[in-house]
């Protein structure tokens, strides 16, 4: 049971919800850049939210399915030969062509039973800098054969037949993607970073007053934010400290970097801000050229936003489970 890659997309990797509990030895959690879309894609094929799926970035691939497979494409609205944001039973031998997305940058292709690569440190996520996880620790290439679970075809047919409100090889409903930006600049809530007070007043103002553009050098490790150069009052060395998903660091060239899924676990650059967890998945939906603004908030607001996002996801997951008769 496999999927064959006839043409690779831009940066296509196997991802789940990441490996946790290893940051003290320098292993970042990694995982899906947009965990919300990944969870929804999984739920749409009847999987648990943390199964491994294929992360598609900016430009999608051409894929061929060896057997009948229940799939779901969820996230940015990529042009594709199947309808998005719903379960679709693709027939053996089908060629699935995924193009570009007019908005958003990432989508997840989930399959019933998940992608069956070996877990490494408790996760199937690809960590490219370390060369482990996923398929050989690397991006997917032309000719790759992606293993699915043994019983994938059975599972696919059984799950599809249990779905309510079917229409042909799909269903008459879809879930709204939660994270794809409707308009830009995207407003991201941020907490003051540990070193925010040490930036000069002009830089503190510029950080929140400017529209930041995501630079071409951005990847799964971090997004470079182009805008005015930020400077500190005194440019004294700081002790390397822990970093986190969504930390915004400012290296000495003054160009902030927002740390994304594959970030380093510690860093020696001053931290001007921490992006609220609720907004990191939304930021992950921007590609190079996308624009953002920052709005400062407190820990209470950030927590409220985070719980609201999780609640909305849980509601959607319950709704999808209901469609499967669960």
């Amino acid at each position: 049971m496999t999927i064959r890659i006839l043409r690779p997309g831009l940066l296509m990797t196997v991802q789940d919800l990441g490996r946790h509990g290893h940051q003290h030895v320098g292993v970042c959690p990694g995982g899906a850049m947009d965990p919300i879309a990944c969870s929804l894609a999984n739920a749409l094929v009847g999987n648990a939210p943390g199964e491994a799926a294929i992360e598609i970035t900016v430009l999608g691939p051409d894929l061929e399915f060896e057997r009948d497979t229940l799939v779901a494409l969820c996230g940015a609205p990529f042009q594709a030969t199947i309808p998005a944001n719903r379960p679709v039973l693709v027939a053996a031998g089908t060629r699935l062509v995924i193009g570009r997305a007019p908005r958003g940058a990432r989508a997840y292709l989930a399959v019933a039973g998940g992608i069956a690569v070996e877990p490494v440190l408790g996760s199937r996520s690809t960590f490219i800098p370390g060369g482990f996880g996923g398929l050989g620790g690397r991006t997917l290439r032309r000719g790759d054969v992606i293993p699915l679970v043994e019983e994938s075809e059975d599972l696919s047919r059984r799950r599809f037949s249990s779905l309510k409100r079917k229409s042909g090889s799909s269903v008459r409903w879809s879930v709204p993607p939660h994270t794809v930006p409707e308009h830009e600049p995207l407003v991201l809530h941020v907490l003051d970073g540990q070193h925010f007070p040490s930036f000069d007043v002009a830089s503190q103002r510029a950080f929140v007053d400017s529209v930041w553009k995501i630079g071409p050098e951005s990847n799964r490790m971090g997004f470079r934010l182009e805008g005015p150069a930020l400077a500190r009052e005194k440019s004294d060395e700081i002790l390397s400290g822990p970093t986190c998903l969504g930390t915004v660091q400012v290296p000495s060239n003054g160009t902030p970097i927002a740390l994304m899924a594959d970030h380093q676990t510690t860093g020696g650059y001053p931290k001007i801000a921490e992006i609220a967890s609720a907004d990191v998945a939304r930021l992950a939906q921007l590609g190079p050229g996308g624009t953002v603004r920052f709005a400062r908030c407190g820990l209470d607001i950030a927590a409220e936003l985070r719980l609201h996002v999780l609640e909305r996801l849980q509601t959607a997951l319950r709704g999808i489970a209901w469609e499967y008769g669960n």
Partner: protein
Amino acid sequence: MNAFVQRLALAVHARAEPELRDVVPALGGLALHFAPQFAGDLVQASLGIVERALDGLPPPAEVGREVEVPVCYDPEFAPDLAEVARRVKLEPEEVAKRHAEGEYRVLMIGFAPGHAYMGGLHPSLAVSRRAAPRPEVPAGSVAIANEQTVVYPYAISGGWNVIGRTPLVIFDAKREHPSLFGPGDRVRFRMITKEEFFS
């Protein structure tokens, strides 16, 4: 301060607090990474975790393990040894000897999986980082800067002064203990010959 951070990290880790996903000691602090589902007050919860950990702080001797790392300081593996020797006004052999005689402590792991920053370098060997980082430093390279030493786990770009190389695999995600180094480990380097390196 780092010794205290390491003890605190170990105590928090040992308690396996359910709401925490990661506990990360660093040079300049300790990170408690909460699971996103946590619905309580983060400040109160963090204070509670630290208070409980302070009650059971392990003695410094219980933090970390002993790790011995064989290092070959042959010029073939030590592109910066001659330059470091010139800067600190010692013979290259003396630099290698002093490095190998030191007792080190893992202060922080970061930058890459298994990449340990170790304190305890002899002050006479303290040099700044290279002006231009090397585009690729081979895996296992042993390097120094300021009063710290590191061992590169992967072939990556790096600006530290490379003075030797170990044949050990520093990080292997598929091993039972992926990282050779853990937080707070006590590390010694043992000088080996080129023959030993290749055997």
